[in-house]
C-alpha cells in the first residue's frame, strides 16, 4: 500500500485531518532542508510537500517565489531534491513526501529517469503546477510504473466535467486551490471554500486537501471541517525570510503545532 493511502487511512481511524506543510528545497540553505523536514513532522505534519526549485515559478506569489529565487541562486535543483529525500528517508520511512514542481526540471531530466530517481529516493507523489491532465499522459505512464501518485489541482472555477476528468487521472489526493490567484494570497471567503470542497468530495473518492492562502490555525480548522487535509506553504516560508534559521525554525514549529491543535480541536 502506498504511504499516502496508509497515511489517510490511519488519519481516518483517528478521525483526524492531514496537515501538509510545504517548503522549498534548498531554502534558506540546502544543508538545512532535511533538518527542517524532520522538524515539520515533529510539529504535527502528516505529509510533506517539497518544492523543486525553479527559475520561473509563475504560479507562486512573492513569498514562495523568493524562496525559489534564493534556492536557484545557490545552485539548487532537482538533483539535490533527490538527495534531500534520500537523506530524510534514513530516519523517516513513514511520512509521505510529495514533490511540487514545475514541468521543465522534469523534462530536462526526462520522464523515465525522473520516475526512477524519485522512486529510489523515496518520493511518494508528484504535483506539477503547469502540467494539466491534458498534457500529463507521458509522465503519468512512467510514474505509474514505479507506483508514484500523480496529484492534480482543482480550482474554484474548474467545471464539473473537468473535475471528473481530473479525478480519473489523479491518485493520492486532489489538491483544491482555495482561491483564484497565486500561493500566499488571502482567502476571500472561507464558507465558499468549504462549500466547494464539499461539492468536489461528492465527485471523487480520493481525499481532498486544500491549499493556497491557509495562514493560521483558525483557517486550517475551518477548512478541515470539510477537507481531508490542509496545506500550508507561504505562511511557513515567510518565517524563513523574516528570521535567521534558528528563530525561523522555532516559529515554524509553533505555527504548525498551533494548526495541528486547532484542527484536532475542531474534530
Amino acid at each position, binding site marked *: 500500500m502506498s504511504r499516502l493511502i496508509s497515511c489517510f487511512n490511519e488519519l481516518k481511524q483517528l478521525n483526524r485531518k492531514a496537515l501538509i506543510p510545504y517548503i522549498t528545497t534548498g531554502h534558506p540553505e540546502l544543508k538545512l532542508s532535511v533538518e527542517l523536514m524532520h522538524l515539520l513532522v515533529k510539529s504535527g505534519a502528516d505529509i510533506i510537500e517539497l518544492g523543486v526549485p*525553479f527559475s*520561473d515559478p509563475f504560479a507562486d506569489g512573492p513569498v514562495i517565489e523568493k524562496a525559489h529565487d534564493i534556492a536557484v541562486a545557490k545552485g539548487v535543483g532537482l538533483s539535490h531534491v533527490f538527495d534531500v529525500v534520500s537523506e530524510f528517508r534514513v530516519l523517516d520511512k513513514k511520512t509521505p513526501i510529495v514533490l511540487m514542481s514545475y*514541468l521543465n526540471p522534469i523534462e*530536462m531530466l526526462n520522464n523515465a529517469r525522473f520516475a526512477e530517481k524519485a522512486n529510489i529516493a523515496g518520493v511518494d507523489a508528484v504535483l506539477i503546477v503547469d502540467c494539466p491532465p*491534458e498534457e500529463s499522459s507521458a509522465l503519468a505512464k512512467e510514474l505509474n510504473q514505479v507506483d508514484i501518485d500523480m496529484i492534480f*489541482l482543482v480550482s474554484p472555477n474548474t467545471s464539473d466535467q473537468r473535475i471528473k476528468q481530473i479525478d480519473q487521472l489523479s491518485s493520492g489526493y486532489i489538491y483544491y486551490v482555495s482561491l*483564484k490567484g497565486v500561493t500566499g494570497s488571502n482567502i476571500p471567503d472561507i464558507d465558499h471554500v468549504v462549500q466547494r470542497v464539499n461539492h468536489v468530495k461528492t465527485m471523487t473518492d480520493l481525499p481532498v486537501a486544500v491549499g493556497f492562502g491557509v495562514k493560521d490555525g483558525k483557517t486550517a480548522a475551518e477548512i478541515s471541517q470539510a477537507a481531508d487535509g490542509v496545506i500550508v506553504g507561504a505562511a511557513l516560508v515567510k518565517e524563513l525570510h523574516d528570521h535567521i534559521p534558528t528563530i525561523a525554525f522555532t516559529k515554524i514549529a509553533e505555527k504548525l503545532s498551533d494548526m495541528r491543535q486547532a484542527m484536532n480541536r475542531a474534530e
Partner: protein
Amino acid sequence: MKSAEIKKYIWPDKQGHFGEFGGQFIAETLFPAINELQKAFSIYLKDSDFQRELDEDLAFYVGRPSPLYFAKNLTQYLGGAKVFFKREDLNHTGAHKINHAVGQALLAKRMGKTRIIAETGAGQHGVATATVATKLGLKCVIYMGENDMKRQAANVYRMKLLGAEVKVVTTGSKTLKDAVNAALRDWVSNLDDTFYLLGTVLGPAPYPEMVRTFQSVVGREAKRQSIELTGKLPNMLVACVGGGSNAIGLFYPFIEDAAVQLVGVEAAGKGIDTPEHACRLSAHGRVGVLHGNRTYIMSNHEGHILPSHSISAGLDYPGVGPEHAWLKEAGRVNYVNATDKEALHAFRLITLKEGIIPALETSHALAYVIKQAPLMKSSEIIIVNLSGRGDKDINTVAKIDGITLMEN
C-alpha cells in the same frame, strides 16, 4: 540550403500542438480563462462585424497596407538579389506589434473585459498595447523588467503618457521572461475582468495561433505586393525571431509555397560560443516547457531557465514560439543567427544607404541579408520584414559610440 516541402499546412491541432510543440502547460486556475478566450477567438474570427472593425482599424488607425519598398541603394551596394523591405516600421507606433495588439484588444472589448495586461521587453509591444487600450477606453497595466526599463526609458514614458500603468518587475533576471511571469500572476488573480494581451506567438494555446492570425496580414500583403511589383513570388523571406511574431506574420501565408525559402534570424549576442546569446533554434536550445508551451528554450540541466542576451531587448528571451520549433523540426524554415556586432553594422549600413533607421531587432534580419544577397542572382528577390523603426534604439547605439545624449 533546401527546405522541406509542406503541401498542406494544418497546424496547430485542436489542443494547440504544432507537432510535439505548443500545448497548454498552465495551472488549473487559468483553464477556464483560456477556454473562454479560445471560444471567443473562434467565434469572432468568423464574425463579419468584428472583421470589419478590425480591417477599418488596420487601414485607418495602423495605416495598412504597409508598403513593400525596393531597397535600390542597398541592392546596388550588395550586388546580388533584389532586396525589398516590408515596411512594418511605418505602422502607427513604429512596429509590427500594433497588428496583434489591435486584434486582441478588439477581442477583449467584445468579451466584455475592462482591463488589459501585457508584458513587454523592448517596450514596443507595451506601447502598442497602451495605445489600443487607451483608444478603446480599457484600463491598461504593462509589466516590464527593471533592466529593460533602463534600456528603454523613452518607451516607458511613452506608455505612461498613453495612460498605462507600468509595473516594474524586479525578480529573476529582471527582463522579458520575468515580465511574463508577473503578467501571468496578475492574470490568474484578476481573471474576471482582465484580458492578457500577449506580445508574441507563444504561451498556451490559443495565443500562438491567435497572434499568428492577427500578424499574418503582413505576409498576405507581401505576397500580393510581390506579385504586383515583380510579377512573382519572392525567392526568400527573412525576419528576425525573438518570440517570433513578425516572422510568423510574414512566413505563414508562404508556408505551402515550397519554392520560397524562409529564414529566421536569432540574436547571437556576444557569440554562440559565449553564454551571452539568445539562440534557441540555431544553436544551443533544448526542448522544454516554459510559459505555457513546449518549445525550444535555453535551460540548464536542472531545468532552470538561462538568461538570454541580445543588444536588442526584443530578441532577448530564452524561449521561442512553438510554431517556430515545429518549422525547424519540419525543416521548412532555416534558422540562423547574427551577433550584436553584425546587427550594429547592419543598423548603420541600412541607415546610411536607405535613410531608414531600423530597429536593432530588425537589424539582425538585415545582417543576414547583407551576407546572403550577394550570393544570389540579380533576378532573385529577398523580402525582409522591416519589423520596426530604430528610433527607440538611439540611446543604446549612442552609448556604444561613447556619446551621451542630453536628456530633458
